[in-house]
C-alpha cells in the first residue's frame, strides 16, 4: 500500500526550553489523535521527526501512524540552532526512505515537510546551500513555521511553499498550529494522486499565513 511520508523538523534549541517544548509535545500528541480519526490518513501516513539544536537527531524514524509514539523531546541549556545541518540530514534520510514508482512496485506518494523554528539558523551558509537541495527532493508541500517573536520569517521564505508564523509559543498557539498541520496532512492524503501541491486548509487565528 502506498505511504504518505511526513517529515517534521523541530527546533529544540535552548530558547524552546520549558513551556514551548512541552507545548510542542502536547501539540504533537493531539495531531496524532486527530489524524487517527481520518481513515485515509490512518492507511497511508508515516511520520518521522528530526530535531535540531547544536546537534541534529532523528528522534523518530519513519513510522506508520498506527505505531507512532511521541518520543521524548530534550532541549540543551543553550547553544546554536543548526537548521542547515538538519536539512542536510533530512536530504540523506529522504533519499534512503522514500520509495519511488517502478513497473512492479507501488511507490510512495510525494512526501510532505513541516519545519518549526523559533529563531534563525546559526549555520547560515550551510542553510543557504541546502535550500535548493531540499526543494529538489520532490516534496508535495514544504511548510515552514516561524514560532514566536525572534523567528525570522524572511529567511524561511526561499525554502518553503508556505510560511506561517505564530505570535507566541504557548500551549494554545501550538495546539492550534498542530491541529492545522494535521488538517493539512489530511487534505494531502485525500488529494493523493494529484500532481500539483495539495490545497492548504484554512488556518486557525493563531497561525498567520505569511506566504
Amino acid at each position: 500500500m502506498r505511504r504518505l511520508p511526513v517529515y517534521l523538523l523541530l527546533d529544540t534549541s535552548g530558547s524552546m526550553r520549558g513551556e514551548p517544548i512541552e507545548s510542542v509535545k502536547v501539540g504533537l500528541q493531539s495531531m496524532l489523535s486527530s489524524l487517527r480519526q481520518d481513515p485515509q490518513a490512518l492507511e497511508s501516513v508515516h511520520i518521522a521527526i528530526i530535531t535540531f539544536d547544536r546537534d541534529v537527531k532523528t528522534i523518530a524514524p519513519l513510522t506508520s501512524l498506527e505505531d507512532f509514539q511521541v518520543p521524548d523531546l530534550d532541549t540543551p541549556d543553550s547553544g546554536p540552532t543548526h537548521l542547515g545541518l538538519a536539512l542536510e540530514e533530512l536530504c540523506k534520510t529522504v533519499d534512503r526512505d522514500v520509495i519511488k514508482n517502478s513497473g512492479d512496485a507501488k511507490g510512495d506518494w510525494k512526501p510532505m515537510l513541516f519545519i518549526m523554528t523559533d529563531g534563525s539558523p546559526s549555520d547560515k551558509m550551510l542553510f543557504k546551500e541546502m535550500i535548493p537541495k531540499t526543494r529538489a527532493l520532490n516534496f508535495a508541500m514544504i511548510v515552514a513555521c516561524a514560532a514566536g517573536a525572534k523567528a525570522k520569517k524572511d529567511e524561511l521564505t526561499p525554502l518553503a511553499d508556505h510560511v506561517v508564523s505564530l505570535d507566541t509559543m504557548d500551549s494554545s498557539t501550538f495546539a492550534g498550529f498542530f491541529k492545522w498541520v494535521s488538517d493539512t496532512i489530511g487534505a494531502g492524503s485525500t488529494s493523493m494522486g494529484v500532481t500539483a501541491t495539495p490545497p492548504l486548509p484554512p488556518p486557525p487565528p493563531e497561525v498567520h499565513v505569511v506566504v
Partner: protein
Amino acid sequence: MTPSESDPHKSQNPSPDKPEPAEGVPPTNTPPSEFPTETILPETPLPESTLPETVFPETSLPESDPLTPPADDDSITAGTEFPPDNVGTTEHVTEPTAPAGHTDHAVTPADQNNTNTEPANTAASAQTPPPAPQPARPQPARPQPVTPTPVPVPAAELPVPDIQLRLPNGKVNVPYTATLQGLIREEKLPAGTQADQFEVVFRQVAGLDAIGLNVEVTGSQAHVTGTPQVPGDHKIVVDYTAQHTGRSDRPMTTRRKQVMLTINPDPQSLWKDLESDPSLPYQKPTTAAERKAETSQAVLLAASRRGRSHAHDGTFRDDDFRLGTTADGWHFLAVADGAGTYEYSREGSRLACETAWSKLEQHFGGVLGDAFSQVVTDYHQQPADDSLRQIRNTLYQTLGTAGHAAFQAIKEEAVKLDCPPKKFSTTLIMTICRRFDFGWFVGAFAIGDGGAAIYRANDDVLILNDPDSGEFAGETRFVTMSDLWQSGEQILKRIKFHIVPDLTAVIAMTDGVSDPKFETDDNFFSTEKWHGFWADLHKDCQLDRDNEQAHEELLEWMNFWSPGNHDDRTLAMLLP
C-alpha cells in the same frame, strides 16, 4: 515489424493463421478531416486550487495535563519530589506501615483533593490524644489540576526512583500482547544511588479492564493481553515500588505513574457515508446496475458504485457506464471515470458514455452493417492487407468518431456553463462486439486508465487497451485533452480489435476495480491474474446468462474492502 509484435505485453495469437491485428498504421486515404485541426496546446490536468472543508472532527481528548492525578485515585499524596516527565503523572504514595500511634503521615495540609485513607491508623491512635479529626473530604466530581508542593521526605524513607514505562500501540479488535517493564531512569535517580541497586516491583496496573484488556502482574513485569475494544489514548495507572537492595530495613514506598496506551480505531469503522448535496447540478445516484438480455446471443451486465472516498466526503459518484444492443446483434459496452478533482466530471463521464453510444448507434446497420460483416468474414477466411485496412478504417470512422463526439458534447456543455471543458474531465473505454458463425468480433477504443479485455477461461486473455498512465499515481489522459484528437495516427493507436472463435466474457472496468484487483500494469496483462479475477468475481456472483440478478450481485461484490483503494468502481460485461 509492427509495434504489436515487439510488445511483450501483447499475448501471442494462438491461431497461427490469424496474424495479430496490427496497429499504428493510419488509414492511407482518410486524413482526420472530420476532427477539428485547431492548434491548441496540449492541456495538462492542473486541478483547481479550492480549499476543502476541514474534514476532522474536533478532538475529544481531554487536555493532557501532566499534573492531573488520575480520577479514580483515592489514596494519593500530592507532591512530587522529581520533576514530572512527559509520559504521565508521578505520584508519591505512602503505604500505611507507620508504627501504631503514629497518625501523622505524608498528607500535607495544602492538599485539597484527597480523602483521609487511614482508618486503621486512626483507630490505633485512640491511645494517644487524637489530633483534630480530619473531615472526610468528598471525592471531587472531576480531577482538579494540582500544583505540586515539595514534600519534605521523612528521614526514614528513601525516595523511589522514577521509571520509564511504554506500551506499544494496539488496534481495536486485533489481539494485543505486551510486557510492561520498569526501566530505571538514570538521569532521575535519588542522589547517591545507582540504578542497579534498585529492584522494581509492580503492585497494580489499573485502567485496562475498561478497554477490554487483562493484566497479569508478576513482580518486575506486567503482562498485558486481550483484544482491545475501545479506541483512543488511554491513561493506564501503574503503582510500583522499588526496593533498594542495600536498605531492606527501609519502608517500601509506592509510586504511581501513568502510561499512555494508544488504541487505534478499526479503520473500517471510520468511513462515513454521506449524502451528496442535492442542490448541485448534474445529480447522480450513488449506485447503478443494469442488465440487458434483448438478444439471444448475449447478455450485457454492468454495475457502478460510489467509492468510500467520495462517500466519506459526501461527493458524487464520478464513474458511469452505458450498455447497448442492436437488433442485428451489435453489442456496446462503455465505462468512464470522471476525474475526482474536477467539479463536473460526473457529468463528463455520463455525457461521454451517452454520446458515444448514440453516435455509434447511427453506424450500426449502416457502416457497420452487412458490408462490414462481409469484410470481417473475408478477413477471417483470408487475412489480407486490404481487408485489414478496411476494418481499421471502419473502426476509425465509427469508434473514433464516437469518441470525438463525446469530446464535442462536453465542449458544448462547457460553453453553456462558460467554463473550460477540463471541468468535465473523464476517461472513456468503449467496446463493440458481434457474433459471427466463426466466432466473435470485438473492437475497442480507450482513453485513460482502467481497461478492457476478452477473457477466456481456456485460453490467454486479450487486453483491448494500453492504459494511459503518467509518472505519478493518478495521472492519466482524458477525453477532454484536445491534443489527443490532432493526429489520426494517435487516434488509431487507441483502437484495437480481435476475432476469436469463442470467449468467456468481454469486460471493461475503471481503475477503481483494476487497481485493487490487479495492482500493476504487468498483472493486468497476465492471464493467470485474470483467472484469479474471474474466480474472485464468482465468490459473490453467478455470472451466467440466465441469472436475472447477476447485475445486482455484481454491485454487491463491488463493495469489497481493499485498504488504500477507495475510488468509484464500475464494471461492464458481455456474457455470450
